[in-house]
């Protein structure tokens, strides 16, 4: 079969996007509730290191993932406490935590660098994996990749179709109105921030036990992923399916960088490795550009039918963040 290397590559895109997906969905949940968790970059590194160390020590992959989730939950608990209870700036706290956790992971992880821990195995799904094209593409992955598919659907269902999901949007949009409708806003914000953190914390071990197995300290290649996660969350417009699209787009760009390297020997390999990052920011810019006033102004010089079409496309792409993202809530009584 001629197409099989491409198919394998695309399957690889799906599995290498899995950790990004976990992180993006976790962040989306937290931000929908109104808490901006900027610590993502450090949190992923620390949970990658912690998860690797845990499964190295115990020999259990499961414990590795649990450790990652626990670290994610713990870091986001700090974010939640300082922003919800202490009402401090979420940006400042998140940023400091991002730097702190990153350096902490390098420091604590220095002893276990380069060792080999258990790895997540492939788990082809019987029968389904033998289907043409979609078999190798969708049904020949490790368990966490399947979980990432399910996560997208489950989180979408929770956010868009259930009563608590509606309230989640409510507390991030207008916490005062949510309070009047009976929500315990700050408790819900705690819960969703910590749950979101725990989900995002799974991204770390998913890297260190599967996608980029091992812990190599500063050259693990994980630094920066967390920042991209934050931008994909915006790209995703705080909806799981669009977020998944963003995650796959990013993983696809990374894969393109890899396969283009032999084809374009003149381009330094670093350029192709780094290219997905600015490209991602660029798409983000494009998606949200119709928010900008200068854009409207410059568009206003175009003839009406053209402008209307452009605006229609731009507005349909455009997503508004939860109105109270980053704003602490105080009930007045």
């Amino acid at each position, binding site marked *: 079969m001629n197409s099989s290397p491409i198919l394998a590559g695309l399957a690889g895109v799906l599995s290498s996007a899995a950790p990004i997906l976990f992180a993006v969905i976790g962040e989306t949940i937290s931000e929908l509730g109104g808490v901006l968790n900027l610590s993502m970059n450090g949190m992923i590194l620390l949970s990658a290191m912690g998860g690797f160390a845990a499964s190295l020590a115990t020999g259990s992959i499961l414990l590795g993932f649990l450790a990652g989730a626990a670290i994610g939950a713990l870091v986001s608990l700090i974010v939640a406490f300082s922003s919800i209870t202490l009402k401090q700036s979420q940006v400042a706290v998140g940023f400091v935590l991002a730097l702190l956790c990153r350096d902490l992971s390098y420091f604590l992880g220095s002893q276990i660098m380069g060792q080999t821990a258990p790895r997540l195995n492939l788990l082809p799904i019987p029968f389904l994996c033998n289907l043409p094209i979609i078999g190798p593409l969708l049904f020949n992955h490790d368990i966490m990749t399947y979980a990432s598919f399910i996560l997208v659907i489950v989180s979408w269902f929770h956010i868009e179709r259930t*009563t608590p999901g509606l309230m989640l949007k*409510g507390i991030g949009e*207008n916490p005062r*109105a949510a309070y009047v409708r009976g929500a315990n806003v700050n408790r819900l914000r705690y819960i969703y921030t910590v749950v979101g953190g725990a989900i995002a914390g799974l991204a770390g071990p998913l890297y260190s036990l599967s996608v980029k197995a091992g812990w190599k300290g500063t050259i693990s290649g994980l630094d920066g992923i967390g920042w991209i996660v934050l931008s994909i969350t915006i790209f995703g417009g705080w909806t799981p399916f669009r977020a998944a699209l963003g995650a796959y787009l990013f993983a696809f760009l990374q894969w393109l960088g890899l396969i283009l390297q032999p084809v374009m020997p003149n381009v330094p390999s670093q350029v192709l490795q780094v290219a997905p990052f600015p490209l991602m920011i660029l798409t983000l810019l494009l998606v949200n550009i119709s928010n900008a006033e200068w854009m*409207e102004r410059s568009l*206003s010089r175009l003839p009406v039918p053209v402008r209307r079409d452009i605006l229609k496309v731009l507005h349909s792409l455009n997503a508004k963040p939860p109105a109270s993202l980053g704003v602490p809530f105080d009930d007045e009584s």
Partner: protein
Amino acid sequence: MIVEFRCISKAFGAVKANDSVSLSVPEASIQAIVGENGAGKSTLMKILSGYLCPDSGQILLDGKAVRINSPACALRLGIGMLHQDPLDFSPLTVLDNFILGSPSRFVPNRRKALEDLAGLAGRLGFSLSPDARIDALTVGERQQLEILRLLWLGAKVLILDEPTTGISLPQKEKLFVALKTLAAEGMSIFFVSHKLEDVESLCGKAAVLRQGILAGTMEQPFDSKELVRMMFGKDLGPATRSCRENGKPQPCFNLEVKNASMDGTRFRMKGIGLQVQAGEVIGLAGMEGSGQELFLGACGGLVPTSGGAICLGNAGKAMTGRTYHDFQGSGVGYLPAARLEKGLVPGLNLAEHYVLANRMPGFFIDRDKALDLADSRIAAFNIKGGPESPAESLSGGNQQRLLLSLLPDNLSLILIEHPTRGLDVESTIYVWAKLKERCAQGASIIFISSDLDEILQYSDRVMVFFAGNVTPPLDAESLNVQRLGELIGGKGWEALQGKKEAHQENKELEHA
């Protein structure tokens, strides 16, 4: 349900918002709560609805003392409140807003909610599209939704905090019919308002609050003079009439709009022409979202025009495509309706607002000077608050006074959305007196209002907007409330159309 307040007191710092208020309201009645801005009306209602806890005092429902410590708890007891600013979720749909907060299953039963919504809406004569997003609705429709939601959740006591500010005349009539139906069915309704006509036509009893104290109560038929005296502790003189009477407008133009067009989300407006003379007041009437907001924004450079020209000053300086900043530089001031969101900076105190508004030259802030400046402006505009009080702690009326006091002195064109929305009678008269002063100094004013009386009373000429259609400027003296109401509702435009064409022909003849 019989609602009784017993000696309710609530203080915010040194301000006694409610001071030992006692009041009993029988079921199947509509009780008006009136009083000047900052009298403590909202505070008392928030205490009943569980949004605020009283410092002391008791609330009795049907004779039983109850503790209401959260809005959810109040709703369980059957008390629902429509807040002064709508508390809903703008990116969500009508149906989602309806469901949100109801004690429903994990996966809500949308079909049942939809049926209930349609049933309740039909009973009260409201029509809401369940799939519309809240940010596409008018304030009136958002109110209707909130009322339906509270009824659905079993409210037997309904509190409406200034429900008639910002809704159109037909919406108001619909609301009143609905409220009367509900009261006849046994509901106790609290109706907070500044408009005495509304109180007179709707309520059986009125309670007057003044500076946190219950100043008195009155039953139908009301003596409005006496009510006003109870509210303000004095009689109020008649409002100033249109400034035409104060002298002929000088032949000097502050604004010329030539054949302008603008794009709204739902319609396109074309061929708008207007010349505003110095000292003139132009009122823009129409249901919310009919295009008047776009037009006013375009006059201030906040909304881009898609055709035509906008010129400022007697020299006709072309401003098309310029930013608000350029307009500001040419003497245009804009007062938005959403005071706290767009006009003021929550978190900054009054003195800081004056410094920000460029009333202070220099790079460093001279604190003493800033405080002096603030003191003098606060005194000049009669604002209830100190230089150190944050903007958001002022009551609605005082926020409006603050906005006015921030306007620079040498403006030639003042654009205002709803200049007196939510203001008490005294403040309304006061605000317009201040605006008229500006007119006498040669400024022009264009304002939007949903209060037809205000439009007719204060404007020299009126433009009516209906779904993106605009009348030519009409002489205010040739209009009355009924005619204006019809135009706003889209009736009687054919006659105008003829006039407009004639008007244009005349112009062409003039040019030729």
